[in-house]
């Protein structure tokens, strides 16, 4: 459905420094430096997938989104989305996609939401019957029927984001790009937005590409993540893959009847211990969790065991460290 092959893109950036002398100098001899925003990016996305596209600021996320939504032309590389090359058949291509820029609005600030919707209907030439159907569906899932007649400037951020998402789906796109859709939202609105994305993905087989800094978004939504740093793809796989590869330890917490016997198992490190409980870090390369628990059971009268993975957030931070991005 989306095929991207070795995309590259670089920008020329003018250098500027402080001081009157250098200001005059740059007047006559401007200096530029070249920034490689993307280097040889390739991936494929199938219909109905939700893909989390993550990476630190400046990694090339928004450049990629801009290229595959037809805003930017890459220096080299191929991209086919539903048979169209975004930068060649822009108008044909953009009919298939919906875009939400989390920090910008496509709604008319001073007017009721429904006016913006009707304008979008005309921009995308959506037939009236189809428009009604889509609108009703969106209104009911997003619960925005009471907001439609309110001017946008009076909406809260969470209400506005729901309307923004509805606005980008009015023309029934096959693919939805979400650029930081939950930025600045409160917990309730975040969950509402996530639930909606899940629902619409299942009901319509909508393909969703999502950039975010909020790992909870990823955990709640994306089966697959693409990690990008310094313009290159560092990892492309499922969230479980990621955890497997970068979470080589599990945390095991054990409750037991009072016991002070010392524990010594290879690959197991005691993080903390009291008379009746302890927390252990299990190195999965050395020993399986079940085996470790087996050894423990020999020495202790275990009351309760729980196994925890490390939070994704931490894994990502580690990843950034590993790749030095």
């Amino acid at each position: 459905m989306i095929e991207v092959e070795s995309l590259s893109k670089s920008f020329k950036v003018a250098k500027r420094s402080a001081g009157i002398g250098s200001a005059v100098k740059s007047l006559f001899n401007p200096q530029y430096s070249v920034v490689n925003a993307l280097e040889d990016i390739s991936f494929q996305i199938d219909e109905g997938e939700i893909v989390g596209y993550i990476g630190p600021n400046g990694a090339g996320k928004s450049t990629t989104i801009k290229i595959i939504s037809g805003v930017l032309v890459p220096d080299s590389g191929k991209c086919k989305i539903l048979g169209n090359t975004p930068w060649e058949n822009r108008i044909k291509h953009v009919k298939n996609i919906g875009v939400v820029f989390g920090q910008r609005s496509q709604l008319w600030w001073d007017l009721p939401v429904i006016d913006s919707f009707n304008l979008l209907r005309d921009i995308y030439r959506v037939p009236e019957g189809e428009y009604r159907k889509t609108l009703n569906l969106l209104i009911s899932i997003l619960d925005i029927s009471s907001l439609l007649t309110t001017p946008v400037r009076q909406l809260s951020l969470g209400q506005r984001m729901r309307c923004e998402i509805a606005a980008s789906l009015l023309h029934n796109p096959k693919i939805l790009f979400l650029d930081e859709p939950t930025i600045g939202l409160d917990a309730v609105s975040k969950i509402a937005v996530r639930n909606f994305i899940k629902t619409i993905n299942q009901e319509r087989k909508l393909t969703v590409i999502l950039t975010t800094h909020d790992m909870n978004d990823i955990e709640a939504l994306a089966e697959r993540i693409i990690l990008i740093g310094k313009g290159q793809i560092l990892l492309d796989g499922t969230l479980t893959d990621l955890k497997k590869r970068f979470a080589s330890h599990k945390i095991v917490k054990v409750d037991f009847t009072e016991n002070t016997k010392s524990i010594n198992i290879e690959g197991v490190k005691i993080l903390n211990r009291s008379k009746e409980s302890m927390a252990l870090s299990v190195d999965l390369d050395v020993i399986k969790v079940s085996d470790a628990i087996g050894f423990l059971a020999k020495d202790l009268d275990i009351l309760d065991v729980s196994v925890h993975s490390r939070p994704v957030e931490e894994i990502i931070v580690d990843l950034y460290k590993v790749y030095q991005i």
Partner: protein
Amino acid sequence: MRAYYSLFKMRVLKGLQYRTAAIAGVCTQFFWGIMYIMIFEAFYKSSTTPQPITYNQLVQVIWLQQSFLVLFMLWYRDSELFNQITNGDIAYELCRPSDLYGLWYAKLIGQRLSGAILRCFPIILIAAFLPKPYRFSLPADGISFILFLITITLALLLIVAISMLIYISTFYTMSPTGSLLMIAVAGEFFSGLIIPVPLMPSILRKIVYLLPFRYTSDLPFRLYAGNIGLKEGLLSIGVQLVWILILVWLGRFLMKRAFKKIVVQGG
């Protein structure tokens, strides 16, 4: 004083950063100068009767108007101040121990000066090398030049006093566009920027002489061009001083009243 100096330096630096803007400004003003001169050239050629200002003097006046435009334009505005007033941030300023009128006054002078410095010299320089009928030449004589320097300094103080009134009016109207537009258009006309004062019919000229506007961009330039004699020049300096005193007093008075109003509103 140090604070004002560093504020001023920051502004010039900022101006240099926006080099393209400065160059564009110079080009634009230069172009307007040429255009006005050509229109007047055509008018002067169509008539043989002598006019109250010679064509050559008029050329000097036009070039000076264009070079110092930033200094004397009423619509040259500081949106930061306007925003402070309309969105109520002004409340913070009121908590500070400084004299707000004086502070704004200094800020506006710095702003106009830095804008003008970047633009006036290139325009004057290029205009000085134009072929004869368009050329910008040296002042009529030494005394005119001294008078020009004195009056243009006072003119700057005067124009800022006038524009302060526009800012203060925002306290009352809460919408900068309306009052700014009206005063700017009228002021531009009465200061001879659209049609030179000497070319106005005599009744209109009498009105213009009663208003403060011509003492900003008409008086100094015509002194430079030698269109106004020594005696009238000295007298006009007195008038400038009187206007500055009146307008600054009026501004302070209105500002105080406006603040009282804000306090009463409890806002």
